[in-house]
């Protein structure tokens, strides 16, 4: 791949944010080089390309870095204009999709990393947010979630999947199922439809490994500072 048309993605296997551009590039059939970052030992390149936040994901297109997962998704849609499109054409629908992507902020991640009483509180907050989404998303899916066959996953699907696609791992951490079909039939149908998408296998982290990582992060955080 020459510098003329080089696409590189700096990511981390367990990061839901890094999953987003990887998923989008695969859905759009764009060749790219994936660079796995060790977040405890970040590469020179990553620090050079994202000096402000020093985080993944970073897309490097023809040597130019783009950071922040949602910004990268918009960039991908603007550069590679052949279908499938990540965002709808209509400005009003685009606004709705952007609104919901913003709504699905990482509350679920906060919940995963909290402990004990704190976790219970944040989990209740998460469930209430999901109630709002369950009701509100009817405006996006007035006829229910379509199978993602002809219509490939887009911006909002990718954001949703990045946070809820690994719900089994979250459920192991919480010690109980939370994405139940009784309370969230629409969200459940959405995540299940996305799980059928072929590209999903390539982007979803292994659940046991993900759980192990979450446990180690939680353990590290509860280690008291050395005297």
């Amino acid at each position, binding site marked *: 791949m020459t510098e003329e048309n080089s696409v590189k993605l700096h990511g981390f296997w367990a990061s839901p944010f890094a999953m987003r551009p990887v998923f989008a590039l695969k859905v759009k059939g764009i060749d790219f080089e994936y660079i796995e970052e060790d977040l405890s030992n970040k590469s020179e390149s990553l620090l050079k390309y994202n*000096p*402000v936040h020093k985080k993944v994901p970073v897309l490097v*297109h023809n040597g*130019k870095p*783009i*950071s*922040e997962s949602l*910004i*990268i998704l*918009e*960039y991908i849609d*603007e*550069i590679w204009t052949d279908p499938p499109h990540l965002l709808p054409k209509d*400005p*009003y629908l*685009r*606004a709705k999709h*952007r*609104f919901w992507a*913003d*709504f699905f902020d990482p509350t679920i991640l906060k919940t995963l990393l909290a402990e004990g009483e704190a976790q219970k509180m944040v989990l209740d907050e998460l469930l209430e947010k999901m109630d*709002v989404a369950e009701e*509100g998303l009817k405006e996006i899916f007035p006829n229910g979630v379509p199978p993602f066959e002809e219509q490939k996953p887009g911006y909002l699907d990718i954001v949703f999947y990045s946070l809820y696609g690994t719900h089994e791992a979250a459920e192991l951490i919480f010690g109980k199922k939370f994405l139940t079909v009784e309370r969230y039939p629409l969200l459940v149908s959405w995540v299940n439809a996305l799980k059928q998408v072929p590209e999903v296998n390539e982007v979803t982290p292994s659940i046991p490994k993900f759980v192990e990582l979450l446990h180690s992060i939680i353990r590290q955080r509860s280690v008291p500072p050395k005297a």
Partner: protein
Amino acid sequence: MGDEVEVRVHGMWASTYSKRVELALKIKGIPYEYVEEDLMNKSQALLEYNPIHKKVPVLVHNGKPIVESLVILEYIDEVWPDHAPRLLPRDPVDRARVRFWSGFLQNQLLESVLKLVMSSGEEQEKALDELHEKMTIMEQEMGDIIPKDISSIQSKSLGLLDIQVICTLGAYKAHEQVLGVKILDPHKHSLIYAWVNAMMDLPMIKEITPPHDNVVNFIQMIFKINPSA
């Protein structure tokens, strides 16, 4: 009052988010009707248009509501592409950079401003240092995005990032008065200082800037800070 009015903004005079939307419409020369909301007694319309967050601003275009200030700004740019100026540049790399710094102002910088206002003593000093560090990062990393030639700033060429900067930092003098700290120092952050002050002088910005004392009182009230004797 039906939906004969094409564009309506539900806002609140002290909300910088609300100002962002008004400014975007003014810059592009789009006429709109403004509805001032009493946030202690929100209108039925507001609650119907934004049932999820129940917040201002809401842009109502041909009867359809759009919420979240940054989402609204992108919408305005997309729906009125022929109304110059474009709020976002055309080139995708430049758009990504503008969105990045816009997000930085909205999230990181604002977070530090809030910490500053809500803390006191040593914690407040730390918060001020943190805010200043972020402003230093901006000056170092924004490069050519920060206008160097202040005389070139005009109302009719303002964009998304100008809007974000003026709405996040425009009230700095009021904050400095309430908190007794120096937020925007021309020696420490000369580029940002010049940028903000050049914009504050523009007629269009003056039009939407609330009176200084009103802002001071509002900040004091909101954060229950006692005015110094």
